[in-house]
């Protein structure tokens, strides 16, 4: 019953953090319409506490009453669940006037498109592979994702570990806004289908660690100063003591490359939606933001040279390297981001750094260049892209 032992895919993970996988993730056709140039909500760098908080995310896990959960459902059951869910989402209609829903049947989507969705944090690697924790499923397993365009702020995964996973992302610290949008969509879908619900256990989910509210609140924070001052472990431990999970930018089990962390609740039963929101948005995250800002000031005032050295060393590498792994580039981009926010680096627009966080990922890199590349070719192409983006103004 370990929450983590089956790769809980809450905050969908991106590229493999350590081993930039040697199997080519980007087979198939390149469709330029799905390349990374569009404005992605979580990379906007706007919103409350945006110096420290990149994005906020809310996820609701929901299941249809009377149907087996996806991992134990037969392929034909999954096909029917998929159909019912897809049409319910369709019937729920648009979430706002200018948003249109794009449905992606993952059985048919080319690998590159699935890869891009993973890197953009819309879906987990588990959903990409279609493989469940009990070994069932596979790439041809009936599953899909509904993405609300143009900003991809709202999306719904169908037949991931649960029948429906509704998620809303906003830039900055904005969990309350995410929650009310997720609830509105949830209410619309619930006006069409019956959800599995239990008087004691609340919303029922395949994994008992998600029952109750089925709500996961998650915030992506950037804590480079706490890392440098050596206080990061304290924050991590405090968060763990409060029952929160701290993960890397790539989700479950990943290293926090660039000191980007996702902090999310683990308890979903016995606390109401509002209480969880209050705890995380009202108490935990503001405290962490305060610590990080304090550490940044401390560095600026007391260890100015050290701070400058770290920032400009990273900038030098990014502007000069000829080969670069994704993880290494995140590490340096994180420090350059800090340098920009501290006023040390003046000739780079922070939005370029945010965009690069995504563009250096294997799928996006290949989509941007419009061709398949081997791992070695990707390293060269990545270094070249970074040099170009960080030197031209």
């Amino acid at each position, binding site marked *: 019953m370990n929450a983590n032992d089956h790769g809980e895919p809450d905050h969908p993970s991106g590229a493999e953090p350590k081993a930039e996988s040697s199997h080519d993730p980007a087979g198939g056709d390149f469709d330029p319409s799905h390349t990374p140039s569009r404005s992605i909500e979580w990379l906007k760098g706007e919103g409350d506490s945006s110096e420290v908080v990149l994005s906020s995310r809310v996820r609701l896990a929901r299941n249809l009453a009377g149907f087996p959960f996806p991992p134990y459902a037969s392929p034909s059951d999954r096909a029917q669940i998929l159909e019912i869910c897809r049409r319910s989402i369709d*019937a729920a209609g648009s979430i706002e006037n200018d948003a249109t829903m794009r449905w992606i049947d993952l059985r048919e989507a080319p690998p590159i498109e699935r890869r891009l969705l993973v890197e953009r944090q819309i879906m987990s690697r588990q959903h990409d592979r279609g493989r469940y924790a009990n070994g069932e499923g596979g790439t041809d397993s009936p599953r899909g994702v509904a993405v609300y365009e143009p900003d991809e702020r709202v999306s719904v995964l169908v037949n991931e570990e649960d029948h429906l996973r509704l998620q809303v992302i906003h830039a900055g610290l904005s969990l309350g806004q995410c929650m009310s949008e997720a609830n509105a969509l949830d209410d619309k879908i619930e006006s069409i289908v019956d959800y599995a619900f239990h008087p004691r256990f609340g919303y029922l989910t395949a994994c008992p660690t998600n029952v109750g509210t089925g709500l996961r609140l998650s915030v992506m924070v950037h804590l480079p100063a706490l890392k440098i001052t050596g206080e990061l472990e304290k924050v991590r431990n405090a968060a763990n003591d409060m029952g929160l999970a701290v993960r890397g930018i790539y989700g479950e089990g990943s290293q926090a490359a660039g000191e980007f962390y996702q902090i999310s609740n683990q308890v979903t039963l016995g606390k109401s939606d509002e*209480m969880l929101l209050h705890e995380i948005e009202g108490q935990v995250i503001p405290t962490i933001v305060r610590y990080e800002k304090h550490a940044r000031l401390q560095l600026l005032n007391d260890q100015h040279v050290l701070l400058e050295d770290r920032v400009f060393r990273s900038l030098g590498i990014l502007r000069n390297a000829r080969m670069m792994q994704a993880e290494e580039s995140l590490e340096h981009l994180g420090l350059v981001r800090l340098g920009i926010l501290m006023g040390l680096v003046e000739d780079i627009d922070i939005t370029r750094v945010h965009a690069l966080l995504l563009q250096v990922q294997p799928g996006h890199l290949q989509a941007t260049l419009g061709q398949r590349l081997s791992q070695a070719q990707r390293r060269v192409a990545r270094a070249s892209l970074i040099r170009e983006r960080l030197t031209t103004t």
Partner: protein
Amino acid sequence: MICECGQREATIHEVTIQNGAKVERHLCEHCATKLGVSTDPHVPISQLISNYIMGKNLAVPSVGGEDKPKQTKGFAPASAPCISCGMSFKDFKEHGLTGCPSCYESFKARLGPLIARAHEGGEQHIGKVPRRALSSLSDMTDSKRLENLIGGASEREQRLEHVRAQLAAAVRHEDYEHAALLRDEITRIASMPMSKPSAQIEPTSGACEPTTTRDD
């Protein structure tokens, strides 16, 4: 492969668990539709759902389902599989995943402590409940379904007690913001429609929209 009817090519393949045994079926479109395994785009969603459930002959554990799973309390052995999907508790322990919503009722006694441990002692759901289910069930005719959904008077009392205890703790720790949220929760639970065997339900304005304290 030929369909069970022996007349057409089987294009739909289905695997189900019945009484703990795996049963495979291979059907043509025609038979599949008859048995409720169809995905014809013109069939309404509600029809798809009821086709499925009829086709499976499953006990429906659901929100407002009328055919609540039969209680096997008393004579079912501890190792009995889930009455709906046939999954055993041993299967659950292997991967940490339940098979279907009914598993929670089937394995309630053994799952309860595990769930409480995973949720830092949380044993009782508080917070949002399905909105439509509540409002459509808050009239007298559906009082049984309502009870299925949010529980009867004893569950409500249990839930209130749970929140009151949390409230007392919050006040003790002078966490007044938290206490305010808990007070809201108590109001919300108290305003939920209640299924009473004979008495009329007060048609208060809050009765149909009590699912959340959000002011949206």
